[in-house]
């Protein structure tokens, strides 16, 4: 099996960049937001205190949406670099 080394490199560079973007989003909604929960609780969203809302629901929704977007993005990278599986 011969796959061009430069194609591999391009694919991996884009994959890695995508990974970093998603890890930053993940980090913000896993840790940063909840670190400031007490501060955020003075605001309210849909009548919820914001800090409580983010832990009970907000972060979870972000994770679900983020994953479906990630699947779509990674799939596009695989296809454009010619690294996708044959259907």
């Amino acid at each position, binding site marked *: 099996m011969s*796959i061009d080394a430069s194609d591999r490199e391009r694919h991996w560079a884009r994959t890695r960049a995508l*990974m970093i973007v998603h890890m930053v989003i993940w980090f913000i909604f896993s840790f940063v937001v*909840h670190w400031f*929960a*007490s501060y955020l609780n003075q605001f309210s969203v849909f009548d919820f205190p914001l*800090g409580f809302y983010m832990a009970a629901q907000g972060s979870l929704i972000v994770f679900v949406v*983020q*994953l479906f977007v990630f699947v779509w993005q*990674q799939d596009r990278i695989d296809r454009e670099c010619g690294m996708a599986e044959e259907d």
Partner: protein
Amino acid sequence: MSLFEMRGSFIENLPKIYGIYTGGFVVFILLMAVLEQMGLGADTIGILFVGFTIFIYALIGWLSRTMQVDAYYVAGRQVPAVFNGMATAADWMSGASFVAMAGGIYASGHAYLAFVVGWTGGYVLVAVLMAPYLRKFGCYTVPDFIGTRYGGNLARFCAVVVLVVASFTYVTAQINATGTIASRALHVPFEVGVWFGLLGILLCSMLGGMRAVTWTQVAQYIVLIVAYLVPVIWMSNKQGFGIIPQFVYGDAVAKIAELEALHKVGELLPVEKIAGMSALTVKHAFADGSALKAWQFVTLVACMMLGTASLPHILMRYFTTPSVRDARTSVAWSLFFIFLLYFTAPALATFTKLQVLDPSLATSVIGKPLAQVMALDWVRQWSSVDFLRVVDANKDGIVQINEFFMRDDIVVLATPEIAGLPYVISGLVAAGGMAAAMSTADGLLLAIANALSHDLYYKMIDPKAETARRLIVARVLLVVIGVAGSAVASMRLTGILGAVAWAFDFACSGLFFPLVLGVWWKRANRPGAIAGMVVGLGAGSWYLYMVYAGGMVPWIGLDHLRFGIVGMAASLIAMVVVTLLTPPPDAETQAMVDEVRIPKGRAILAATH
């Protein structure tokens, strides 16, 4: 004739098969409701619910029996992404999620939500860092990846040890949960319930391995999600919050805040302690602003998330999809199906709290005269089995916030009665809890037995063993480990939640960095990985022992639930330092890593190995 002889059409027919199954389950619930109206006793309904669902799982297990290696270990790698998502969700959501989570939020408010965040966000790591690459690798078990990527039996053996320690800790908690539920639904002693639960678990997994577990887990997911959502939606409808309460319970949270001020939550503290039960002392939405509390919140989140991404019984579910792309998609579906339950749990906790606190409701407790409270049906029923206690400490004849004690798991189990729903709903909840605990126990037992039979027996002890022999060894191990787990569970050493959190800490201490760096750091080598596993698991276990039993003061608030932070830090440092001090892996290994990183092309390991 086996259902699976027409294999291609079986996969195509999955939506139809599970559609019929779900319809059948709904008909069964309605039938029970009718029988209840006709005067069938509550006990019989409970027995029928638990008995009928276990019979169905066992039937699926028997229909999925197999003597093929790839069917036994990875369900023939033909599970579609959405169905694998459901199976993973059932695999994932344990007795603790089903029974204890809403109760934990009820008792501890915001602080407990660290579990909700931690047990969902970990899937981002699974999808982005791990699952697609492990699927491309083509391994049967997690130690299979470690053993091939780093080479050598020692690395493989270390991974087996971490897997067994983490999964065994977890499985005892699950068998414990099946025993608790079975004993209550079937009216047998706990010790008998444990063995009955084990029998159900083995019937699901023994004959068909991963294939049987996959299709029973899908069935179990359907039961558990119906059982969780129906009572909450019913109750919220009764309270006027509509049929999608998850999005609109903000009003209830605000109302609770007012009532908490009225009832002096957090000011009136209990004067006595009752083992296993607690009175409300923490405000629902209150987040402590101190740095220590914020640190404790995020460290618990971190341990649960990185643990998620290292737990072998979850990772191995993604070995069963037809392609790398499906593995990735399947993680997203898993999280979606898990989300359905996890974003409902805080809503349930909130509604139950409102039921207890709001003086305008007939079922409420706080601020009411003692005699009136003791006359409530649900209070009488659950205090008779010692799940709650009312103690009039100041002898004023009124129940104050610090005089009402409950066990956490009552919140899910008693919801139908608190809200005055028919008994058929309580039977449904028991079946759901049983499904949650059984499905997780199945996955864990299989993960342990597969690692021992494939990695220890076949790869290290007897590489020439024939297929039939390998599969018999796998089944014998399944029974032996199940029996050992039940024996430990019947001793009731730890609470369900403590043991579950420890399993995550063990898994992330030993496996997280060797797995992630195996894909993302080409330079990572065998001595580094071995050091990472040994030092990580060793440091984590040592810290757990010192904090839990050794009387050591925890470092900066890292108590026994958070020992994974110490283990992971040690693991990362050891792995990086040792790797850099030793020569890089050979060219062949580096080429293998390159291949793992792209979806295209053949798996690293042969289809059957």
